């Protein structure tokens, strides 16, 4: 119970910070941001305490929310190891990004708005992690999407940022459709959204004669796959998987710390986290689809990162690629490995983004100093920055080694676990499945190549902007604190006692086994069969990639950058992200535009005419009614008025004060009465 109270405090702290930043006046903006930092520090410490206490236990508390008919919906908190660990990471990265942003956003007019939305995001993310039922997860899922939208569009007056935020929001909605469909199926089949109850019911459900039977409810077996694919579609949208990965590169329009927190470390990992929560619900078909899509995404993202010149875009495509890795893990039944990679990736990718942000910040200062017209994110004008940005350089170096998967760094451990899992899965499933492993291994080389390329282009060689490199100055302690903490946690020792062997990782050994419901292949991520082969092989692949990058971009070599119309085929494919945007533009978007034109025509020709003819009928009808009104109703009323005026004219003479006529009337009446009586 005490644990639940701590969890609720952690849950509400970012909301408090959000409210405080929203109401803070402009003059107190800086104070408000420092208070947010203190609040997040508290919640980071609290969640670390929670992590130490929770161990491999799990705790659930829930209460009734609302009742519709005979169905009661509940709210609840679920605490388990994977959730609390992610909670620590979200709070910690968020804290460091807050500290970093104090300097990075110092001169921004939307300072309080920015910090408010960062806190809102942290709150929503904590909501996803702590929710114990899928309905609440969905609510916070949408809230996370909203805060992402708000932060991508932070510089909303910039056209490209406004468009990018809309694109991210709309593409995410496509994925969320799948989530809603899956929720409907789950409700129909199980009658509950509570994760622990779903797990129990799913394990007791069976496939009989092509039907998926659970308790009293039975559905054709295909709905099981639909449910899994629906959930996966949600993750495809949020975690930027093929074919919906197009929003993430555009999301780099947001401020760089936001890219570090939301579009690298935490939000995009929410899809993977959701998959790990519902991994018991996924059947073999769905798992195969997930593994395939994951490997395709990993490869496509890595290829797209190869030839980018925008320093942030490289990392964006790299994120897509690494998220693909995580989903390979989910798809091959190694959800522990996927989560492991999620956690390690959160640190080193956040470190990379913040280091890149530091570079951009320094170049921006140079640009303003000389009033230049340059793109500060273009790697073609960078080079040789390592001597003047030492902290940035070394942290970037460590994080990049981790991302490449060099031994002694965290990325090596988690990537190794994923590669072993993919290889085992391919061996268990069959020949075609080796494609997944092949793409995964190819991506290792590509990752090493594009990270080596970026490292060499940005930090080595000569400064190509035409100015002296000595004019570049590194940012203050805000940057350094965040960078150093993040890159320290990218070192392998923190994750495994033996940094060459993921099997001794405390994390993997604490995560409980799931996946009981699909026992058709019995995979164990901790299975060591291929481990030494994979470890050595991946190191060799990394070395090959680094060597290629070295040969192509080594310091001292005269670098020439081809104009966009002289690029080779591969470079054009890469820089345009496989022409996916153009493809969607030509097919889906032009279809939708055509459809809107057709619908507009239909509206004008059919609906408008229908409405108009209804209008005419109404006019004619009202004319008839008007005529009837005038002749009959008015006539009736006029007649009654005329009648009563005549009667009144006749009767008023009785009352008119002519005494003699009174007497006549009295006399006549008397005579009449006498006649009638006698």
């Amino acid at each position, binding site marked *: 119970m005490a644990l639940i109270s701590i969890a609720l405090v952690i849950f509400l702290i970012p909301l408090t910070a959000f409210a405080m930043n929203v109401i803070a006046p402009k003059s107190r903006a800086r104070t408000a941001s420092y208070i947010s930092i203190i609040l997040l520090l508290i919640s980071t410490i609290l969640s670390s305490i929670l992590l130490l206490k929770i161990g491999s236990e799990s705790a659930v508390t829930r209460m009734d929310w609302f009742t519709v008919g005979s169905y009661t919906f509940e709210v609840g908190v679920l605490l388990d190891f994977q959730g609390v660990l992610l909670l620590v990471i979200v709070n910690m990265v968020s804290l460091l990004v807050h500290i970093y942003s104090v300097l990075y956003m110092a001169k921004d007019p939307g300072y309080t708005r920015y910090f408010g939305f960062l806190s809102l995001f942290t709150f929503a993310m904590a909501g996803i992690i702590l929710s114990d039922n899928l309905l609440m997860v969905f609510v916070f899922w949408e809230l996370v999407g909203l805060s992402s939208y708000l932060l991508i569009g932070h510089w909303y007056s910039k056209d490209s940022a406004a468009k990018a935020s809309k694109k991210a929001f709309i593409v995410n909605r496509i994925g969320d459709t799948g989530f809603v469909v899956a929720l409907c199926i789950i409700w129909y089949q199980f009658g509950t959204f509570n994760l622990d109850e779903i797990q129990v019911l799913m394990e007791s459900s069976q496939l009989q004669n092509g039907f998926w039977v659970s308790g009293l409810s039975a559905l054709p077996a295909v709905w099981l796959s639909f449910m899994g694919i629906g959930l996966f579609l949600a993750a495809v949208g949020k975690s930027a998987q093929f074919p919906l990965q197009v929003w993430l590169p555009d999301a780099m329009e947001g401020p760089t710390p936001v890219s570090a927190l939301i579009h690298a470390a935490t939000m995009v990992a929410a899809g993977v986290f959701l998959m790990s929560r519902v991994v018991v619900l996924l059947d073999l078909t769905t798992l195969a689809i997930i593994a395939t899509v994951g490997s395709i995404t990993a490869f496509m993202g890595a290829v797209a990162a190869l030839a980018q010149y925008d320093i942030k875009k490289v990392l964006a495509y790299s994120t897509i690629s690494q998220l693909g890795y995580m989903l390979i893990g989910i798809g091959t039944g190694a959800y522990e490995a996927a989560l492991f990679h999620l956690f390690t990736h959160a640190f080193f990718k956040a470190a990379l983004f913040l280091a890149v942000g530091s570079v951009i910040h320094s170049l921006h200062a140079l640009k303003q100093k000389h009033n230049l017209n340059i793109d500060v994110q273009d790697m073609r004008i960078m080079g040789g920055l390592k001597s003047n940005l030492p902290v940035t350089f070394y942290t970037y170096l460590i994080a990049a080694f981790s991302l490449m998967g060099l031994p002694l760094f965290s990325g090596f451990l988690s990537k190794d676990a994923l590669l072993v899992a993919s290889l085992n899965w391919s061996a268990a499933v069959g020949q075609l499945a080796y494609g997944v492993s092949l793409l995964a291994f190819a991506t290792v080389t590509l990752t090493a190549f594009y990270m080596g390329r970026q490292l060499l282009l940005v930090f080595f060689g000569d400064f190509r902007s035409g100015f002296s490199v000595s004019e570049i100055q590194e940012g203050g302690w805000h940057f350094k604190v965040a960078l150093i903490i993040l890159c320290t946690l990218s070192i392998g020792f923190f994750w495994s006692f033996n940094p060459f062997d993921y099997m001794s990782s405390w994390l993997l050994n604490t995560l409980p086994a799931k996946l009981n419901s699909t026992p058709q292949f019995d995979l164990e991520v901790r299975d060591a069969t291929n481990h030494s082969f994979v470890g050595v092989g991946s190191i060799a692949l990394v070395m090959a990639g680094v060597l290629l990058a070295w040969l192509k971009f080594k310091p001292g070599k005269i670098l020439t950058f081809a104009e966009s119309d002289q690029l080779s085929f591969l470079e054009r494919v890469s820089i345009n992200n496989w022409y996916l945007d153009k493809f969607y533009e030509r097919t889906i978007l032009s279809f939708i535009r055509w459809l809107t034109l057709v619908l507009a025509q239909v509206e004008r020709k059919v609906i408008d005419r229908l409405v108009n003819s209804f209008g005419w009928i109404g006019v004619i009808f009202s004319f008839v009614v008007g005529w009837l009104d005038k002749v009959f109703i008015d006539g009736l009323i006029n007649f009654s008025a005329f009648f009563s005026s005549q009667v009144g004219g006749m009767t008023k003479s009785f009352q*008119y*004060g*002519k*005494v*003699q006529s009174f*007497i*006549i009337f009295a*006399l006549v009446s008397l005579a009449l009465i006498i006649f009638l009586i006698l």
Partner: protein
Amino acid sequence: MIPAEHFYYIGAALFSIGLAIVLTKRNAIMILMGVELMLNASNINFLAYNKAGSLDGQFFALFVIVVAAAEASVALAIVLKVYKHFKTINLDKIADIKD
């Protein structure tokens, strides 16, 4: 001895003449005179019905004469006031002025 029917005829004739005057004359004083005629017609009837011996009718006739005298004095005073106010005693004109 004059038979009783003759008295009835005279009473009826007098009453009719009085009624005709009341209905046709425009002058208020003439109408009062018509009313006097009708009262006297009723007196004649009282007396005629009393020929058998009882004196009740004769007393009643006396009361009627007294009441008629009082009525005439009051009515003539009203007519005098009406004349002062409206400068006419034509009843039709007085009715027209009412509005």
